[in-house]
């Protein structure tokens, strides 16, 4: 009887203590992953093992970083001071803001763990504590520091996105990723990246981004953060202000360029000056005052969800006008950053491997003359000559040697222009161009110099199966 009482008490104290002991809701995440080989897209890398941190939030989910679980084949989570590993799977992921939510099949996993509440943006100079399972030991580790500054920074997981970020001098090391940053028993951030070479600088994802992600997925699907589709420049030159008849003060940033996005082009044009976006006055340097911090105006455009409107005030033709801008997420630039979840598309014909041009592919190439044309195609054409953009530029990535293709002089790493006279706008065009050919030979034309190659149609058809077998390629395509 006495023993039982003691147990109960302990149990009670456990329950009561959870809120004040957030570490009990912090878990270790182990991921066994395999990433694709972008040069030979049917192949995958050797299984890698990585560890990170996660924490329990409401709805029996574990929040962690996207980069902790990306390309995961198996994800295991371990509770605080519990030796058992539990299997987890990804429920939602946002690669752009580097957040993921995990589910655990075993309902026992969550027993005794309280969801950590998400707090508000911490103030600069206030103290925060990080919790996680960084390298250098097995047990949970705590570090404490101050909030050093708050501004927009690049999120390196995808590499082509920037969001609000909080910098702290609390140590954030590999393994800390996905761990909570705590202030007053609430989560005020998710630790996610550091800067090599800088001391005492760690970065965490602030509550605004976390909450945006959580709200986004309420409908069961992730859409992402919207973008205004404009380039803005500071409006600090007195002559330019005078030309636009803009009052001589510190308000307004100029629209320098509007991307070919219908919703943006409908509302905004070049030389409009943005005076207010949502609740924020726009400074003449293109920043807004956000919870006491001067941050990039992009933060205001990232607040709404995909498809929502944001009220704006603009200065046009010497007058202030009010309007609203509908904001959408942008997926067209995905190939310019690191991509996840979806294995690369490819098609192999006659030993020739065709795959979409992407930064993931380009990173594996040495920088040579032909890669300049690829880099231009991938990152500059859309801004400079939007009318000439191809939906999905295709490269002949490599040629798997076989007598049928042995005489081809092009051995890969070239952009494909046309096949049998058909302009190649996407991978499906490649398949169609080969399949519909009527002539004895296939003619492939390449960019940028007009080089071309010929291959016998019947021989290539006949050799295709054998080539797949020789090189152990499971399928001639992944679409």
């Amino acid at each position, binding site marked *: 009887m006495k023993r039982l009482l003691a147990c109960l008490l302990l149990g009670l104290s456990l329950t009561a203590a959870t809120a004040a002991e957030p570490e009990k809701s912090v878990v270790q995440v182990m991921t066994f992953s395999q990433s694709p080989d972008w040069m030979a897209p049917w192949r995958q890398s050797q299984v890698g093992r990585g560890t990170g941190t996660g924490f329990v939030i409401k709805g029996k989910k574990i929040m962690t970083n996207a980069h902790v679980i990306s390309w995961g084949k198996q994800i295991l989570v371990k509770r605080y001071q519990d030796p058992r590993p539990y299997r987890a799977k990804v429920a939602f992921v946002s690669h752009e803001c580097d957040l993921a939510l995990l589910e655990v099949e075993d309902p026992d996993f969550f027993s005794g763990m309280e969801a950590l509440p998400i707090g508000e943006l911490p103030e600069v100079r206030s103290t925060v504590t990080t919790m996680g399972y960084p390298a250098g030991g097995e047990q949970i580790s705590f570090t404490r520091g101050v909030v050093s500054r708050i501004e927009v920074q690049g999120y390196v997981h995808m590499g082509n996105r920037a969001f609000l970020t909080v910098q702290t001098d609390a140590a954030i090391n590999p393994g800390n990723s996905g761990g909570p940053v705590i202030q007053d028993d609430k989560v005020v951030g998710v630790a996610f990246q550091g800067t090599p070479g800088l001391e005492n600088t760690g970065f965490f994802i602030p509550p605004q981004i976390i909450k945006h992600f959580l709200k986004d997925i309420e409908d069961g699907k992730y859409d992402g953060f919207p973008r205004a589709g404009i380039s803005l420049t500071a*409006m600090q030159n007195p*002559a*330019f202000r*005078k*030309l636009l008849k803009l009052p001589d003060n510190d308000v307004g940033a100029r629209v320098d360029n509007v991307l070919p996005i219908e919703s943006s082009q409908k509302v905004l044009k070049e030389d409009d000056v943005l005076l207010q976006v949502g609740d924020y006055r726009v400074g003449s340097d293109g920043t807004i005052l956000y919870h006491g911090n001067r941050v990039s105006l992009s933060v205001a455009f990232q607040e709404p969800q995909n498809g929502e409107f944001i009220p704006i005030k603009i200065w046009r033709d010497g007058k202030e006008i009010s309007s609203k801008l509908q904001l959408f997420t942008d997926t067209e630039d995905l190939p310019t950053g690191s991509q996840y979840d979806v294995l690369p598309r490819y098609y192999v014909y006659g030993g020739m491997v065709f795959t979409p041009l992407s930064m993931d592919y380009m990173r594996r190439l040495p920088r040579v003359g032909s890669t*300049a044309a690829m880099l231009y195609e991938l990152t500059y054409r859309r801004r400079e000559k939007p009318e000439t953009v191809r939906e999905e530029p295709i490269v002949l990535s490599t040629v798997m040697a076989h007598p049928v293709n042995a005489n081809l002089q092009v051995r890969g790493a070239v952009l494909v222009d046309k096949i049998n006279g058909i302009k190649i706008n996407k991978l499906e065009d490649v398949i169609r161009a080969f399949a519909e050919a009527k002539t004895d030979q296939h003619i492939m034309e390449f960019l940028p110099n007009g080089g*071309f190659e010929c291959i016998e149609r019947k021989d290539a058809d006949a050799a295709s199966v054998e080539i797949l077998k020789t090189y152990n390629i499971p399928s001639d395509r992944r679409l």
Partner: protein
Amino acid sequence: MKKLFLLCLTLLSVVSSQAQLAHNPWEDSIVTVEITRQRYDMGQPWTRQTATDVKNGVVIDGKQILTTAEFFNDVTLIRVQRNGRGRWWTAQLKWADFHANVALLTVDEEKFWPGLKAAKFANDLKDLSLVQVVRWRNGNMESRKAEFNEFTVREGKVSFVPSTSVTFSSDIEGLGWAEAVVNNGKLVGLTTSSDGRKFNVTPAPFFKRVLEAQAKGKFTGMGYFAFTWQQALNPDMHKFLGWKTEPKGVVIIDIPPQEKKKDGLKVRDLILKVDGFDIDIQGDYLDPDYGHLMLENLSSRRHWAGDTIKLVVWREGKELTVDYKLPKADYGTDLIPKEVFDREPEYLIVGGLLFQPMDGAYMKRWGADWKQRAPFRLAYYDNQSKSEERAGLILLSAILPDPVNIGYQDYRFIVLDKVNGKLISNMTDLATALESPKDGFHIFEYMNGSNIQKMVLDAAQAKAASIRIQNNYGIRGDRFILPKQAAGH
């Protein structure tokens, strides 16, 4: 004591071996050449520095010194020295061609010449078994053995035009500065470049041809083939082109806009013969003097710019003969001119905005390999061609901070599209456009995709700021713009 004795012995042996040195006849023909030239700082084009380089020359008939043309641009002083020591003599540049990489010097002072002997050119390069490289080194003639590697065709050291080159290897270091390569008392060629133990030599028969043509006033410049071709190693390509017999020739894949003529070459022509020589599927012909060489060499083997060469091509099932007029090698053919020689760098400053032409001289700020090292977008313009409306590019290269340009000070390395509504191809366009501000404003528009596409300055305030900016930054003049013709526009 023993050590001292040894030292004495060593010294003695050096002295005695020097005493035994025989006179090398090349001592009377090889001179040292010192060139001082203007070197412009493209970051501050109004400043001047000088650079001095030393290379080699060979005395030839007519009281002339033959050397390579490299470094003979923007020259302020040339001096030569005989015997590898002693007095330097002022020399004059008689003639130079950078694409041929040939320069001729002379010395007006008669006292320079007695004792010097004109070198004899080798007529051919059939026997290269006893080749030596000779040069002055610390007052003594250095003569080292070299081994022949191969005849090849390579781009000039300061030109994009390919011509015959001979590769040798040797233990001698630091070659490439017109050192004489000799054999059996005759000049085999002058070095142009080196890479480790290997070095490249322009053969003497080429120099002879250039000098003879030049002396007769018939040297019209180096010609070249402006089209791009690809090898036809793939037999399926011949089938595609309808060529049924033994594969030969290479395929034209690109022709620059200025060469697209009705009766000229066409893309997908199979080039069978050039100037009477059969072309194989690798793009080589059999040169009677040097063996298999790339067809590119035929533009200079026995022709100069402006000559017409007969090309036999296979087009749509028929053999045709096309007369190809060799274009003259010109650095200015490209959108980014490859080199700018003997011209002061142009610039214009307005309201602290520094504009400069985008050319090879400017791009070398990022080094000789600027195509790899310059900001990607700038370097990529080299892949783009001139168009009818735009023959060149003007760059905002820097901003000299001043109250008139507040708000712009962090921008640079962006290319101008229009100023005050007028399209800008050269510095004269820019200066002219700035004479017509729009309602008192200068409006600068940059190329689509630049990280800023528009800047505005108050024209009157920019003008008023001009002297202030020049004084503040120590600049002599707000511009240097060449007369239109001299600028090559």
